[in-house]
C-alpha cells in the first residue's frame, strides 16, 4: 500500500530533499551518537545532522571522524556502551567501512545506517546506482529500499524499531537512491516527536553484549579451532544470526503496521503489488525507479496489456515467499536492476527473484533489465521497452539477457 492520496498540510509539512528527509527521520529517532564523514551524494545528509545538533534540534554526540572506517567503529563502541547510533554513507565510503561493517551484524548491534546508493569506481563515477548496497547484500545487514522522500523519513524510525527488536538485534541499512532521492525535492510530513517516541519506546541496545564496568564481560572472545566446542560455538552464533534475519520479516511487517496506525501512512513493508490482480506479465522494481515504472504500467494498461508491478522494499532478509506468491500467476517476469551481478551476468535482484520462483510449481520465463547505472535516468520509455520485451518473452520468444536499458542513450 502506498501513502494515502489525501494528505493534509500541517505545521510540520516541508518541501525537502531525500537527504534532509533522512536527517529528520534520524533526528526524530533520537540517536545518542551520530558519526559522520562526507561523501557524494550523502554529504548534505550529514551536514543536516551537524546543523540540527548545532542548533539544538537534536541531542546527540556528533563525532566528525577521519573516515568511514572510524565512523562505524566509533558507533560500535557507542552501541556496546548502550547508545542508539546513526550514520550514513555511500559507495567508496561503504567500501572503506567494510571491515567494521562486516562485523556489525555478528555483534548483533542494532544500528541504523542510511545508504545513499551510488555507483562507484572504476570507471570513476559519483552518480546514482545501487551497486554499493547490492555488493554488501550478503554481509548480514537488513536492507530496506525507499521509493519517496516521505518513505525515507518514515523508514528510519521503523528501521530502529526493527533493529532493536529482541528477536532481531541486527543493523539496518535504509537505502535511498543517490541523486534521484538524495537531491530530489518533494513534500514530506514530519511525524510528531511524541508519536515517534511512543512508537520506539525505551531503547535497550546492549542487553546482549556490552562494555560496561557495572556488567563486566568479554565481548567477542576467539572461537573456533579444529573441533569440539570452538567451531560449534561459532556455528550457533551464525545460526542465531540467520534466525534473527528470518524473524525480521514478521517484525518488519508489524513495525510498518504499527507506524501506519500511528501516522496514517501505511508503507508496504516487504513488497508492494501494483495492478497485479489480473496481470499476465509483471515488472519487478526496487527503489525510486518505481514511480516511472508505475506510469509505464498505467500506459500499458491503457493499451490493453495486462501488466502489473511488484516493488521490493525489503531486500534483506529476502521476502522470497511473498515474491513467489505475488508472481505465481503471471506468464513472464521482467526484473529491472540498478546494479550488476558480475558472476551471473544479470542484475542482482533478477538473480534473487529467479531463485525465489523456483518454489513455484510452474516455470515462467524471466528477463533481466539493467538500467539507471551511473546516474542514468530510467524513463517511462525505458520501462515501456521493458514491458514490451517481457510481453514478447511471455509469448514464447527467447531473448538475450541482460538487456542494458541505457546502453544506447544519447
Amino acid at each position, binding site marked *: 500500500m502506498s501513502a494515502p492520496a489525501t494528505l493534509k498540510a500541517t505545521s510540520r509539512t516541508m518541501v525537502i530533499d531525500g537527504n534532509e528527509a533522512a536527517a529528520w527521520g534520524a533526528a526524530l529517532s533520537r540517536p545518542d551518537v551520530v558519526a559522520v564523514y562526507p561523501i557524494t551524494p550523502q554529504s548534505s545528509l550529514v551536514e543536516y545532522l551537524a546543523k540540527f545538533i548545532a542548533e539544538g534540534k537534536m541531542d546527540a554526540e556528533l563525532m566528525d571522524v*577521519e573516515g568511514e*572506517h572510524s565512523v562505524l567503529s566509533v558507533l560500535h563502541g557507542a552501541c556496546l556502551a548502550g*547508545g542508539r547510533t546513526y550514520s550514513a554513507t555511500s559507495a567508496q565510503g561503504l567500501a572503506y567501512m567494510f571491515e567494521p561493517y562486516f562485523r556489525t551484524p555478528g555483534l548483533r548491534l542494532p544500528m541504523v545506517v542510511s545508504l545513499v546508493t551510488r555507483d562507484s569506481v572504476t570507471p570513476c563515477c559519483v552518480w546514482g546506482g545501487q551497486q554499493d548496497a547490492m555488493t554488501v547484500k550478503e554481509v548480514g545487514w537488513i536492507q530496506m529500499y525507499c521509493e519517496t522522500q516521505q518513505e525515507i523519513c518514515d523508514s528510519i524510525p521503523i528501521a530502529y524499531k526493527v533493529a532493536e527488536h529482541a528477536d532481531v538485534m541486527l543493523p539496518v541499512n535504509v537505502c535511498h537512491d543517490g541523486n534521484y532521492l538524495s537531491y530530489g525535492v518533494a513534500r514530506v510530513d514530519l511525524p510528531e516527536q511524541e508519536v515517534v517516541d511512543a512508537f520506539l519506546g525505551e531503547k535497550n541496545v546492549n542487553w546482549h553484549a556490552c*562494555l560496561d564496568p557495572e556488567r563486566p564481560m*568479554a565481548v567477542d572472545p576467539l572461537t573456533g579451532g579444529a573441533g569440539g566446542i570452538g567451531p560449534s560455538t561459532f556455528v550457533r552464533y551464525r545460526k542465531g544470526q540467520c534466525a534473527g534475519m528470518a524473524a525480521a520479516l514478521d517484525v518488519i511487517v508489524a513495525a510498518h503496521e504499527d507506524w501506519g496506525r500511528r501516522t496514517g501512512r501505511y508503507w508496504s513493508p516487504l513488497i508492494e503489488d501494483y495492478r497485479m490482480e489480473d496481470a499476465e506479465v509483471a515488472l519487478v522494481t526496487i527503489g525510486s525507479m518505481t514511480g516511472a515504472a508505475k506510469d509505464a504500467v498505467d500506459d500499458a494498461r491503457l493499451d490493453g496489456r495486462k501488466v502489473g508491478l511488484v516493488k521490493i522494499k525489503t531486500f534483506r532478509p529476502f521476502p522470497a515467499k511473498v515474491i513467489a506468491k505475488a508472481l505465481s500467476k503471471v506468464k513472464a517476469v521482467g526484473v529491472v536492476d540498478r546494479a550488476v551481478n558480475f558472476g551471473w551476468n544479470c542484475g542482482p535482484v533478477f538473480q534473487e527473484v529467479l531463485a525465489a520462483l523456483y518454489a513455484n510449481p510452474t516455470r515462467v520465463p524471466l528477463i533481466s533489465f539493467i538500467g539507471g547505472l551511473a546516474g542514468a535516468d530510467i524513463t517511462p520509455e525505458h520501462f515501456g521497452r521493458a514491458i514490451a520485451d517481457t510481453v514478447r518473452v511471455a509469448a514464447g520468444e527467447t531473448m538475450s539477457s541482460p538487456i542494458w536499458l541505457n546502453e544506447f542513450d544519447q
Partner: protein
Amino acid sequence: MSIAFDTIAFRAPKCDGCGECMKACSAVKQGASRISIVPGASAGAFEMALCRQCGDPKCVMVCPAGALTKNGASGVIDWSADKCVDCLLCTSGCAYGAISADPVGGRVIKCDQCGGDPACVSACPSGALEWGGAGSIYNRFGEMEDMFVPGLAGCQGCNSELIMRHVMRRVGRNSVLATPPGCIPGMGSVGYNGKTGTKVPVFHPLLTNTASMLAGIRRYYDKVGRKDIVVMALAGDGGTVDCGFHAVSGAAERGEKILYVCVDNEGYMNTGMQRSGATPYGSWTSTTPVGDKLKGKTQDAKNMPMIMVAHRAAYVATASTAYMEELYDKLDRAIEASFKGFSYLHIYSPCPTGWRVASNKVIEACRMSVESNFVTLWEYTPEAGLRFTRSPDRPIPVVDYARTIGKYRHLDADQLAHIQAKVDEQVALLKRLAGEVATAPAALAAAPARTSTPDGAATPPLRHETFRP
C-alpha cells in the same frame, strides 16, 4: 606477607670513579664514608661496597650485643650505639665489606639510607647510583587486584604480560579495556570459546579501529554522565603505527578522552615475528630475513611517541619496565590526562621469542636499551612541553645493547654505525625539543664524562624555552 623495601641501586657501567658519592656521605655523616667505590677487575671499571640491608643479615647474626637489628618498617639494618660493645665481629661477618670500623672514632659505621633520601644518590653526577622505588611499588600495588587470571598463555619471560598486569592493577575495575589482535588478546585476555582471562570489560576491537571504538564508548559515557570510567587500550605497535594509525591520529586530533597504551615489541610478534613500522633498522624479522642479499630491515622505525607530540596530545610519555617506579609515575599522570584529552603511553617491550632474547634477560635488555639511548624516556604535555625523565647523557654504546639481542646478531659494522648515528640524531632532536643544547652527534659520542670548563668548574646546560609545538 612479606614486605619489599626501597634500596640504592648501582649501575656499574655508568660509574667513572669520581668519588662524589663518598664525599657526600662523609660530609653528611661527619666521618668516614659508608659507601666505597673501588677499582674493578677490568681497567676503568668500578665496583661498589655498600650495605645491602640484607634480608638474612649475617652481621645481625654474629652480633653478641643485640646492637644490630633488621628494621621491619624501613628494611634498614639499624645499629644501636648504646648497645654496641665495639667487638667488630660484624665487620668480619659481612660478605660485602659494607660494615666497618670508623678509622677516626673506631666505632661501627654502616649505611642507614639517610632515611630514604640518600646523599650519595643525590651527589652522583653520572647516574650510576639510583634510589630504587621498586619496593614501595611492590608494597603499594601488591595489594591491588590483578585484573587478569593466573595462567595467561604468554611466552616465558613475556614483558607484555608484565605490562598488562601492572597497568591494569593500577587502572582498576572501573574501566573498559580494548586489546586489539596481537599477543595481548592472543595470550587469553579476551579469551577463547566463551571463557575470558580478564576481570574488567574487555574486547577485541579490529586491529585497525581501537582508538575509534574507544572514542565512541567514551563519548556515550560522557553523555550519560559516567565520566569516571577509564576507557583504554593495551595495543601492540602494529595496530598503532601501521593499519590502526588513522584511528589513533584521528582520536588524538579530536582530543578524545582515552588512555592509549602502546606495548611496543617492535613488530608483529603474535603472528610470527613479521616487521612493522615500529621495527628498528637492521632487525631480523620473518619478513625482513637475513640472507646473502638482504640483511634485515632496511628502514628506520617510525617514532610514534613523537608523532603523538606533534598531535599535541594531552599527555605523551615513553616508559620501560626496567624502571617500574617511573612507569607507575607516568601511568598516574597518563590516567589523569585521559579524563582531559588523548593520553598516550608508549612502553617498550622486548619479546624473548621474537627478538631471540633469553627469558631471564628481558629486563636487562630493557635496561640496556635505555642506558644506550636506543630507548629514551621522556614525557610531554602541551603545557609543560617535553622533558627527559632519565638523562640521555653518558650513554653506553648501542653495540653493547645490540649484542644482547639475537635479532641483531648478523649486524655488520656499517649497520651498527647506522643505528648509533640514528640514536644520536634522535637524542639530539629530543634535546632540542626539551630545550637543552643539543650536542652534535659525533661530539656526543666522544663527550667527556662531564661537561667542564678549562678551569674545572661544572657548566650547567643552557636551557631554552621548552618545546611547545
